[in-house]
């Protein structure tokens, strides 16, 4: 059994707003194995983005608070790490791509400066000092990356010593080898004419180009875990396909671990190895993508798959799930899906509801939070 890159254990996140408090994520456990792509799907408001941002501790705390649970990353519990130390883990340890490519680049700086900043951060971390004639090996073979110990990373200073900073300044010349590495990464994400792109401002690029630059920036830090929070949602369909193709190619090339958040089942089916399905703050099913798509073991997964529009069918209305998403400040007792579930029984209403357990007759890591996983197949 390999050690997972990140292990989220029984994580609960509350939002405290005024006197009210509601649980956006309750008791989610999720492992990302090295080199795997784990997808998380769910409706808007199911807590998937909150989960994604909680792992690198990017949630604004307050109003968000981590109620309970652990996030084990490279042997340490990120929940216990003071926030001011988190920058040392972010970037090179856990990096993130966001869903707003239009605003995720600083409008005031050229593309060169932004990618160079990311590369610079990684160099400072990697070496503890700066090696000037470092040549990038692109594509970077992530499997060769020395396993970094996060605990050790925390003891390292964020800012290099004065001398190292001086060398760094010299190395950041517009024509130095830093420029070469920036170009290297822009080529890695298939940007045409990167020499011109270097000197442009973000507003001069299209949404797809900006997202490519964001991906280049994230990869240039060579993160152990990359969290992609709906990276293609804000793009139109053709650009979405391009970026997705790029990501799929890069996943093979860079061999990194990715947590992929999306509400689009098609996107997940194309990229992920394992898939987690979230509903109303809970992980209701987790398993290998192919098996989850062919034989879902939770009624919600089944309904979600049924609601995905198919391309070549024009007759009839779009399928939907009856009922609506529950209010998280007063979630249904027991299984949260029971008011909308066609196979619900009185048992489902009793708190605390079904735990996420391994399913009999399925893959080893296929788990479902339903009392009757064998009956799901029979739902029309």
């Amino acid at each position, binding site marked *: 059994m390999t050690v997972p890159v990140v292990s989220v254990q029984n994580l609960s996140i509350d939002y405290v707003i005024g006197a009210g408090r509601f649980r956006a994520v309750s008791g989610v456990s999720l492992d990302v194995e090295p080199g795997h792509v784990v997808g998380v799907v769910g409706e808007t408001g199911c807590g998937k983005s909150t989960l994604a941002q909680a792992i690198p501790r*990017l949630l604004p705390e307050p109003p968000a608070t981590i109620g309970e649970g652990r996030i084990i990353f490279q042997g340490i519990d990120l929940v216990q790490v003071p926030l001011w130390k988190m920058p040392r883990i972010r970037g090179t*340890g856990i*990096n*993130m791509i*966001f869903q*707003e490519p239009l*605003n*995720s*680049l600083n409008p005031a700086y050229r593309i060169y400066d932004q990618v160079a900043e990311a590369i610079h951060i990684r160099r400072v971390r990697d070496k503890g000092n700066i090696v000037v004639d470092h040549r990038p090996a692109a594509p970077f073979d992530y499997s060769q990356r020395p396993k970094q110990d996060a605990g050790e990373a925390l003891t390292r200073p964020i800012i290099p010593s004065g001398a190292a900073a001086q060398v760094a300044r010299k190395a950041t010349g517009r024509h130095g080898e830093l420029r070469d590495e920036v170009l290297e990464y822009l080529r890695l994400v298939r940007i045409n004419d990167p020499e011109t792109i270097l000197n442009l401002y973000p507003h001069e690029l299209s949404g797809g180009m900006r997202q490519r630059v964001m991906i280049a920036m994230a990869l240039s*830090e060579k993160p152990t875990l990359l969290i992609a929070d709906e990276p293609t949602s804000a793009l139109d369909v053709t650009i979405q396909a391009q970026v997705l193709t790029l990501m799929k190619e890069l996943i093979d090339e860079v061999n990194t671990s990715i947590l992929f958040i999306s509400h689009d089942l098609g996107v997940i089916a194309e990229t992920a190895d394992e898939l987690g399905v979230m509903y109303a703050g809970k992980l209701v099913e987790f398993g290998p993508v192919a098996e989850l798509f062919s034989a879902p073991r939770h009624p919600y997964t089944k309904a979600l798959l049924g609601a995905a529009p198919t391309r070549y069918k024009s007759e009839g209305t779009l399928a939907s799930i009856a009922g609506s998403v529950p209010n998280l400040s007063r979630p249904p007792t027991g299984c949260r899906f029971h008011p909308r579930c066609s196979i619900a029984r009185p048992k489902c209403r009793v708190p605390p509801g079904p735990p996420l357990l391994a399913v009999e007759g399925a893959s080893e890591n296929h788990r479902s939070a339903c009392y009757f996983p064998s009956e799901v197949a029979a739902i029309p």
Partner: protein
Amino acid sequence: MAERARRIGRSAILLWRVLRANPLTLVGFVIVVLIAGTAVIMVSVPHLLTSYGVDQGTVDYHQSPSWHHLFGTDGNGLDIFSMVLYGLPVDLAIAFAIAGVALLGGGALGLIAGFWDRPGTAGGIASVVIMRITDIFLSFPSLILALAIAVSLGRGVWQLVVAVLLTWWPFYVRLVRGETLAVKHLPYVMAARAAGVTEGRIVLRHVVRNVLEPVIVYFTLDIGTVLVTLSTIGYVGLGVNYPTTPEWGSMISYYQGAGLITSYPWTVLGPGLAIFITVLAFSLLGDGLRDVLDPRSRRVLAGNAGRSSTSPAEQEEAAEEVQQEVLELPTNVPAAQEALS
């Protein structure tokens, strides 16, 4: 070295294009450059522009404006034009000192109050303290407060600077805090955080740069406002000692107090005109500065200026070329395949 020279050259061309696209800004820019040049000359070699020293009388008393005395002379034989010129660096220095210190001090406080404003944290408490003190200062009419402080401190350049400064910084706190609040929630700040950039560096590199645009514009417009406020304080007789220290507001106050305004109006007309032109120039420049500082509008302006340099004939030629290429394209599919293979 050569690279640096080239970059400065490129910036100069860009500046010229932006200014050309915006004539009023150009006017403001030219006047500000002239004013700055005059101020430098008056500080270093005043005899290039005037033949009189500060507070040096002539034998001409109460002369109306002439080629010899452009703005006339006063009852002591002082040449008004010379005194206005001597007042220029004094007024500019005071205005820049006040607005500059207010910008740096108030701006820093505004950044802190805006960026670390989360309630329940140490920063949140600091933010509340800063903002409440700012509110207290803002709740007084600033001119009245400045006058009160000026009265208690007495006359003089430093007293004047302190009096105005004490009422001036809160506006910068409020402006910078507002801009910071808007910027810090933008996705690129979150993206920088996710990339492992430390909070301090996020503030200094990502927030400050994006707050800078409106603040610099406000600062330039503010120079004019400070000048008017200075003159107002000088006008009610609380400014500096004229004629030992030539300052425009005090100058007007002095001549008006001496009852010269009705018989010899040029004594106040000169300094009044100087205040008017200076304030106008900075206002015009400030309006146009936004375009220069914002990469978005900067490129658009520069791009437009660049495009207009292509003559219509050239454009026509290019269009014909494209048309020719289109005509030469194979029209049927087999031919196209052949051409491609």
